[in-house]
């Protein structure tokens, strides 16, 4: 049994896997150790540098699509994540072309991980909340966001497309990414200075957004299960609107919310527009 370590780095794993394929090492004869799952009998952490035992085959060729899928699935955080990837790769190289497809036992797991990673990238794009900084020398916006998978490096360029030349920083408890207006800088470990910048911005609310969120909600259609299905609880703490949710739900449930109007407007005096002339007067008075 070979025990390898790729430090959760796809390029490193790829080089190791390539080497193993050329040596015809079957998936059951190799295991990748990772921090979450250290191997009890890890004897040779640098096994990838061991000399070849059998005559090497020519470098294997696989489709760009499979390689892309493996790279995406590699971002899925789970103990022993690299072993499945090698098994799929091995089987495809051996001629089992369906090993990466959803109908296959390994392929189904691979596709499940890909789907979860894409979903997490989508969560990043959806639920990051940028806080503006004024007069900061190298930053316009800062956000704190926790990803469940390693998508911060691969999915953050989305924000450069959104925000043009503005400079922004996204910080998590593990890694961080900073865009300086031209280039993306990824840090596997978030620098302390970045973390404290983000922590300061984290708790600042935004009355306008909170007002909008409460007002666009239709209490007559209360359906919190659907909301939570799309917006998992773990993100709520990072959203300025997160702290409003429980109150909106309970007031819609217990109050006499028989129609859709926001409670902020209930009981406020209204304005009936009685005729065309009266209307145009009202209109001129309107701000």
């Amino acid at each position, binding site marked *: 049994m070979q025990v390898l370590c790729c430090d959760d780095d796809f390029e490193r794993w790829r080089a190791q896997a390539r080497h193993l394929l050329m040596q015809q090492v079957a998936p059951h004869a190799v295991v990748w150790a990772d921090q979450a799952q250290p191997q009890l009998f890890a004897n040779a952490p640098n096994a990838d540098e061991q000399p070849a035992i059998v005559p090497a085959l020519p470098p294997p060729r696989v489709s760009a699509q499979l390689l892309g899928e493996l790279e995406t699935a590699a971002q899925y955080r789970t103990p022993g994540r690299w072993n499945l990837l090698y098994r799929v790769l091995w089987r495809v190289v051996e001629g089992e072309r369906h090993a990466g497809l959803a109908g296959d036992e390994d392929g189904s797991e691979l596709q499940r991980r890909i789907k979860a990673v894409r979903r997490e990238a989508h969560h990043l794009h959806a639920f990051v909340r*940028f806080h503006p900084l004024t007069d900061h020398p190298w930053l316009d916006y800062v956000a704190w966001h926790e990803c469940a998978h390693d998508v911060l490096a691969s999915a953050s360029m989305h924000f450069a497309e959104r925000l043009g030349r503005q400079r922004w920083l996204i910080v998590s408890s593990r890694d961080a990414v900073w865009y300086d207006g031209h280039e993306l800088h990824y840090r596997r470990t978030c620098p302390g200075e970045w973390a404290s910048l983000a922590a300061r911005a984290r708790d600042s609310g935004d009355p306008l957004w909170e007002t909008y969120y409460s007002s666009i909600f239709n209490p007559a259609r209360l359906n919190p299960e659907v909301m939570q299905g799309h917006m998992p609880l773990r993100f709520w703490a990072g959203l300025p609107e997160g702290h409003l949710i429980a109150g909106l739900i309970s007031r819609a449930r217990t109050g006499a919310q028989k129609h859709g109007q926001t409670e902020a407007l209930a009981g406020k005096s209204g304005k009936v527009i009685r005729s065309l002339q009266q209307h145009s007067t009202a209109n001129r008075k309107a701000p």
Partner: protein
Amino acid sequence: MELIEKLTVLADAAKYDASCASSGAPKRSSKGKDGIGSTNGMGICHSYTPDGRCVSLLKILLTNFCLYDCQYCINRRSSDVPRARFTPEEVVTLTLDFYQRNYVSGLFLSSGIIQSPDYTMEQLIRVAKVLREEHQFRGYIHLKTIPEADPALIAEAGRYADRLSVNIELPSAESLVRLAPEKELISITGAMGTIDSASQESRFDKRAPAFAPGGQSTQMIVGADASDDSRILRTAETLYGQYRLRRVYYSAFSPIPNSPSSVPFQAPPLMREHRLYQADFLLRGYGFKVNELIGAQGNLPLDIDPKLAWALANRDLFPVDLNLAEPQVIARIPGIGVRSAQRIVDLRRLKRIRFDDVVRLRCVIEKAKPFMITSDYHPQQASLESSVLRRQLSDQPAQMALWG
């Protein structure tokens, strides 16, 4: 009035429009450019409110002052609601601020009718024009089109907006006469036609400026009049066919404060709206015709989805052999969608399809089981009567009404 008060009034006034989609726009990016905003065709839901609805755009009215007296609308002139009006500049600032904080992917702007349809439309266009030209905003813009406005204004709106929409409001012309006295079906469909021909023109003439590349949509209110689902779906099918609409939105009538006696006091079950969306999806994505899904009159069943209802009514077409059938036929099996059907076809090029393969594809296996054959499986339920099968497969009795 303070901005925050206006926002309270004008977001509340806008919530009855169901659409919040930011999809269908061409790919745009601000990377390395002045200005902000991008679109990639997919759309993003940045938040969800506790009603389960997606928040994708800043959805507001420019004003809820309105000359019209549409009975189902909270902003009708006879309604006793607080009124407010944004300046176009206020909307621009709010949009840019919300966009940069990543709360939204753009703006969905609508308005009550003030002074005249043309004046109102000009105000809406002004917001979009300032966003696009002065701020180089490349995010999503959806403008509600005032049907009675000059076609030249509609043409101008389409140059700035990704999507235009004209609300059909009600499924029948008679209901429109009764409940929306100032609106006319002919001006609504006329505006849809104007949008459609302008968008066809820009599609076929590459030199012509882009026109509402995200297409047009509309909204129909369900349960404000007595129209049944058959009527609603037939109206939708006509609109899809005649004006190439991207989407028809169905909005269950939501009771409004101080409701007039011309509209119901109770909302229709939300499940009815859900079943209409499911049927609509079958029309757009699966090649179903309305006639296959529903008779000349009546409503969709609430206890089972429309595809299952169709399959139960057409048992002679089932069970379908997954190793032999065309992908379109596989996609008509309840519990198996278009994507799963494609995956089954991809997989069977490499191996025979077995029961476990279908399970692994995460199809709704309980629903699919009675209707499919694999190399190792033949349904025992194939001989069961449809009525028995229906009882087995109907959705759990869920909370159907809003209150009761």
